[in-house]
Structures are given as C-alpha cells and as structure tokens.
C-alpha cells in the first residue's frame, strides 16, 4: 500500500473519531448546562471548550462567551479546527483522496455525515442542536459498522489505528479538564453538583449504564477515573485504547514480518498501565499522570507516521 493512501486512511479514522467525540461533548454539555443555574451553565460550556483545546482560539474570535455562541463554535465554526464541521470536512477530503482504498459503504457513511452538516450555518435552538447531534451519531455509527465489513487488511487497520489513537487522546483530555474543574477547593466531594458533572462525563463517553454494571453504589470520582483509565472492557478507556493499538500494530507485523518503534512504544505503555492501580495514580497526581499519557500517545502517533512513512 502507498504511504500516502495509508496516511489518508489513518486521518479518516482520527477525524471521524474526533467528530464523534465533539458531538457527544456538545450533547452532554447541553444537558449539564440545563441542570445548573446561569453561572454553572456558562462554566459547563467553558469547560467544553477546554476539553477540545479551543478555549484560546474561541477568545481570539472576539465573540461574547455565552452558551449559544460556544455551541455554534463547537458545532459549525470553520475557524475552529476541532468543530464537528471541520472534522467531517477533513474526513471527507481524506476519503476523496483515498477513494479507491475504501468500500462504497465506508465512503457513503462519511459522505452522508458531511452532507448533513455541510449547509448548516446556524445551530438553531438547543432542540435543533440535539437533533443534529442525533443524526450525526447515527451516520458515524454507520461508518464504524462499515469498517467491520471491510477486508481484514491494512486499509481497515489504518482507519482503526487512527481512531484508537484519537480515542485515547480524547478520553485523557476529558478526564483532565473535568478533574480540575470538578473539584474546586472547599467543595464537598459527593455534592449534587459534583454528581451531575461526573455523570455528564460518563455520558460523553457513552458509559453511564456500563458504570452501573461494573460498580454498584453511588458515583464516586475515583471510581469514574478507574473506569475510564483502567477498565479494559470499557471501549473508551485509556487501557482499552492502549490495548487496541498494540493489537492493531501486531496485525501489521504479522502481515509484513516486521516491527518498529511504534510497536515497542505501544507495548511498553500498555505494560505500564496494566501494572498500575488507580490509588497509585491519584497519589502521584492524576493531572501529571494524564499529561504523561497524552505525551506518550503523541509519541506513538509520531512513531506510527515514521514507521509507515506517512511523510
């Protein structure tokens, strides 16, 4: 396979995953904002901007910080490199360039998602935003379904690899931002506000009921962190993403008979996570640990690009 084609496929995976994460973030933030008062609502949208690293770029637009503006910025703004529209536009551009390596189903799912958002200029009211989010989520599920029906070969693996890298990054950023904002000094852990915020976080990663299956009893912040970091059975956990990357890289290695730096880095990271428990992470500082994870993830992304000569 051409390196350029591989790079396009990898970025299709990353952008589709990023688009999905952004839609879920918008959906959950709308809910969180509705639960609180005016100030809490603004705070919810501020934290959503921080999760996708768009706080400073939003400030640069000079727009007033209010829920409607932030919602539009996260959904439709072409100035925002991580808005849903930008992600879907990028995914489709990459798909066009690698069209011959895609099945009709994969192409159509990406194209349909793009067509849904292409002509939107205003997000409309909250209800319209939620409708938009619902139809986008359906198309993105269609994309994931189409991936499973592709040949089990490099083409499919590159898209899955991109998605796994992106997923780990998103979950880590989400945890990091919420960890800081959700435990303001003096606030009693376990208060009503706290519970709302942590349950919102679970909703973003579509894990609200899954949490109940694994842990009985009330929501506890450190358990949510345990769930999203260490539980391999939770698809969006950091451990699951780390394991998926190792598995996908092994699939490549089995096919080509060769391994590289990306394989080594990915395995080392997985070993580290598996040897650790949440208590140790909390002791050493969750924020620092998450930052190390994000840096390692970026290093693996770079190693993949070098190993497969994305150039």
């Amino acid at each position, binding site marked *: *396979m*051409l*390196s*350029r084609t591989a790079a396009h496929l990898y970025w299709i995976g990353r952008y589709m995953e990023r688009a999905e994460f952004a839609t879920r973030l918008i959906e959950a933030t709308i809910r969180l904002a509705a639960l609180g008062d005016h100030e809490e609502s603004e705070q919810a949208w501020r934290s959503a901007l921080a999760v996708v690293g768009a706080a400073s770029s939003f400030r640069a637009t000079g727009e007033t910080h209010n829920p409607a503006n932030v919602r539009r910025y996260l959904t439709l703004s072409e100035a925002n490199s991580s808005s849903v529209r930008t992600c879907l536009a990028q995914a489709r551009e990459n798909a066009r360039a690698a*069209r011959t390596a895609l099945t009709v189903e994969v192409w159509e799912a990406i194209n349909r998602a793009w067509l849904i958002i292409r002509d939107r200029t205003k997000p409309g009211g909250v209800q319209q935003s939620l409708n938009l989010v619902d139809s986008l989520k359906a198309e993105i599920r269609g994309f994931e379904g189409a991936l499973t029906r592709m040949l089990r070969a*490099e083409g499919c693996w590159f898209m899955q690899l991109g998605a796994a890298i992106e997923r780990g990054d998103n979950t880590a950023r989400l945890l990091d931002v919420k960890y800081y904002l959700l435990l303001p000094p003096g606030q009693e852990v376990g208060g009503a506000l706290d519970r709302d915020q942590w349950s919102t976080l679970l909703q973003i990663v579509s894990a609200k009921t899954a949490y109940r299956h694994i842990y009985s009893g009330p929501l506890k912040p450190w358990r949510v962190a345990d769930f999203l970091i260490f539980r391999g059975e939770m698809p969006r956990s950091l451990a699951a993403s780390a394991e998926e990357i190792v598995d996908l890289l092994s699939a490549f290695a089995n096919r080509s008979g060769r391994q590289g730096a990306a394989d080594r880095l990915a395995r080392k990271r997985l070993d580290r996570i598996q040897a650790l428990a949440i208590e140790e992470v909390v002791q050493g500082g969750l924020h620092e640990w998450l930052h190390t994870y994000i840096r390692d993830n970026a290093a693996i992304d770079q190693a993949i690009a070098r190993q497969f*000569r994305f*150039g």
Partner: protein
Amino acid sequence: MAKRRPFDELWGDSGGQSPRADFEAVAAWLKDLPASELQRRQQAAEAAFRSLGITFAVYGEEEAAERIIPFDIIPRVFSAREWANLSAGLEQRVRAINLFIGDVYGARKILADKVIPADIILGNSQYCIPVAGARAPHGIYAHICGIDLVRTGPDDFFVLEDNARTPSGVSYMLENREAMLRLCPELFDTLPVAPVDSYPELLRETLQSVSPGRGDACCVLLTPGHFNSAFYEHSFLADNMGIELVEGSDLEVDDDCVWMRTIHGRKRVDVIYRRIDDAFLDPLVFNPNSMLGVPGLMAAWLAGNVTLVNAPGTGIADDKAIYSYMPEIVRYYTGEEPKLPNVETFRCREPDALAYTLDNLEKLVVKLVDGSGGYGMLVGPTASKQEIEAFRAALRAEPQRYIAQPTLALSTVPTFTDQGLAPRHVDFRPFVLTGADGVKIVPGGLTRVALREGSLVVNSSQGGGTKDSFVLAPGEGGAG
C-alpha cells in the same frame, strides 16, 4: 446547393425505409421495442451511471460540478468488414506515428528528405527539446493513441485527429458496454458482438512489454489527483489493471531510478502510465511550478531506467499543423498508400490557403492548431456574423495558428430524444495500443454523439453524449 441528408449508420441513404445490409437485426430490434420500454431503459441507464459515480468535472463551472455524460442506449454498430478495414488503417497510421516521432527526435530523416518543412517541426511548441537525441525504451513513443474518426458515407471514413498524448474516454467504452449488457441483454443474443472487456488486460500487457528491462515490471498509473476531471477513469483503469494509482508525491527519483513510497519502504517503478501532461511531468525540466510531477523523472527516463507511457514529446504527432502532413508521413514510413484518409485541410500559414479560408469562412470549420476539446473553434455554417468576423480578424493577425477544413456531413445514428427517435451526428474514437509485440486494437471504442439537433460538436464539455459501439464478429452475421 441542395441540402443532402447525411449518411445514417443504420439506415444508410434510405431515409429510414430499409436498413443497410448486415444491420437488419438491429433495425428489427429497434422496431420491436415499444417507445415506453425504450424510455424506461434510458432512465435506468442514467440512474445506474449516477450511482456508480461515473462523473467528470467541467472546468470553469461553479462548484466544480460533477456531471455524468449523457448515455444513449441505441448502439452504433460496425459490420465485421467495416471493422477489418478500419483496424488495418488504424494500425498503419499508428505504426507511422511511432516511426515519425522516433525520427523527429532522432535522425530527422524526414526533414532531410524535405517531406515536411523543418520549421513546422523544430519551431513547433509541441516539439519537446529535452527529448531530442533520446530514444524511448523499445523505440515506442505513442503506446496509447485515441484516433478520432468521422464518417460521411458507406466507405468514407476520415481521421479527424490523432490523439497521441494522453487520450481519455476508454472507461466509457467499458462502462457503456456493461450498461448495455444489463439493459439490453436480448441484443447480445441476436448479434455476434465482439467483447471489449479485455482492454484493461491488454493495456497491462502493453505496459509490461515496454519495461526497460527486468522480468516482472512494476507498473503504476500517475494521476494529477482527485480534483482532475478524468480522475474517475484513472482510478477505474488502475483498479481494473491491478496496479497502483499514484500521485507525484508518491514517487521519488534517486540515482536516476524511480521509486514509489509504500508502507513497507520504497519500491522500484519500471513503467509509468502517466495521465498528466508533459508540462507537469518534471519541475526540473518543464514547468518549474508544477506540484503534480516528480523532480528528476526526465533524467530517469533519459537514462533509460523507466518507461513513460506515452513518452514525452508525442504532442508533435497530433499537432493540428502536423496533421495536414499525415498522408505524406504514412507514405514516407510505411511505403504504402494511407488506408485511412485525412479530412481536406487548409494550412492558413500558406497564403493561398489563407485567402481561400477568408473567402469561405461561412462554409468552413476553423481550428486553432493547439486547441482541443471543441474550444477555439469556428463552425462556419452555424456561426453568427459576429463570430465569423472575430475569427476573420484573428486569422489575419496570426494565420499560422489556424487550419481550416470543409464542414463535413457527419454520419448519424438513431438516438433517443425528447421527441422520440431522431438521427444525431456521431464521431468515433477507437483506442490503439502499441507494445513491444506490436499493435493491438480492442474491437470497439467510444462513440460520441451531438445530442442537439443538427449540432456537429460531440465534445462532452459542449453537450455531447456517448453510445456503445458494437463491432460484429465475422461469421454468419457478417457480409460474407
């Protein structure tokens, strides 16, 4: 002058009274098919083409619109005898074209023998100076030619243009046949239609055969990318040949060898079927701003380490100024009389021809020698007074840029229109492959049809459509 009815491919000169010999079965099929059924199939064809995504982009239109080329389901049919004559003529012409290109970039015998004025060749913008003195692997330059033919009578075929650079349209030949097999299967029961689906395989063999050396040649198709109007065809051909579809950035030249970048490292490339123009091939030699090509590609070609299909510089053979000399060129290199004649052509660079052209503009077709796609062209009989005067001024200013030809009464084929079946003018582009083992022609080609009543312009960018082109196999259905 009384207006004669143009020759019809199905009905001849009978005016729809009786079909030509060999075509009774086609006429019977057309008569038996109810109008409503014809309409249903025509619509089904359009839906199929759209969902397959067989589109082309039209330059200069807003939104870079992706359009489908209209397809007409009534085929154009050649008898076995007609095809035998045509293919003999095509083979002769393409053989001469390859010898001619090799000569003008090599020994230049044809200039020394004063068959063609030297300035027309050496001063031509299509004469590719970097190629001069080089020899293409196996001495083949125009591996793929799309020779445009027109017809005015039962035995009157003329070559209108020799497309020897990167002719397109072959994917329509293949897709149109697929559509016909699905929509009109009964036609193939009654008619012995020669298959065309071996084209990708023949093309792959042709590419393999012209490799500069080494056993199992690595062949690739080089495309300008997915923004190009013919990208569909590029991906279609690469898929059907099972070769990589590459862009310039996928290739690199190292020590005069061409490599492609793959996920497992770089891989040596032997043959490049390039669908980008000479000007963009190599920024070190041609257009320095080109992002589409590969720096160093020409050096690799000149070193004989890679075969370019077609070779750079083949534009010298399909230039419209050279075209008028093609009969002499065929005689010179083959020692035979041309089997396929040219359309009579007035070279406006010659004073007598210019005077004649200026006196007869309303009867003639005037073309830019370096124009294509139906642009930069005057069709005298249908042009307005202003258009004619604009061309008159342009001709006086730069006569060497123009040629003129009589307006031909192009043959017609019954075509499905809003008003039912009606005759529409057609031309024909067969694809001629030249490999190390000789010339091969798939029995078929691209029939283009001018859908507007009376129109003679068949280009897809100017409202033309396509038809399938049947070649009947020799035997019981043939003339014998």
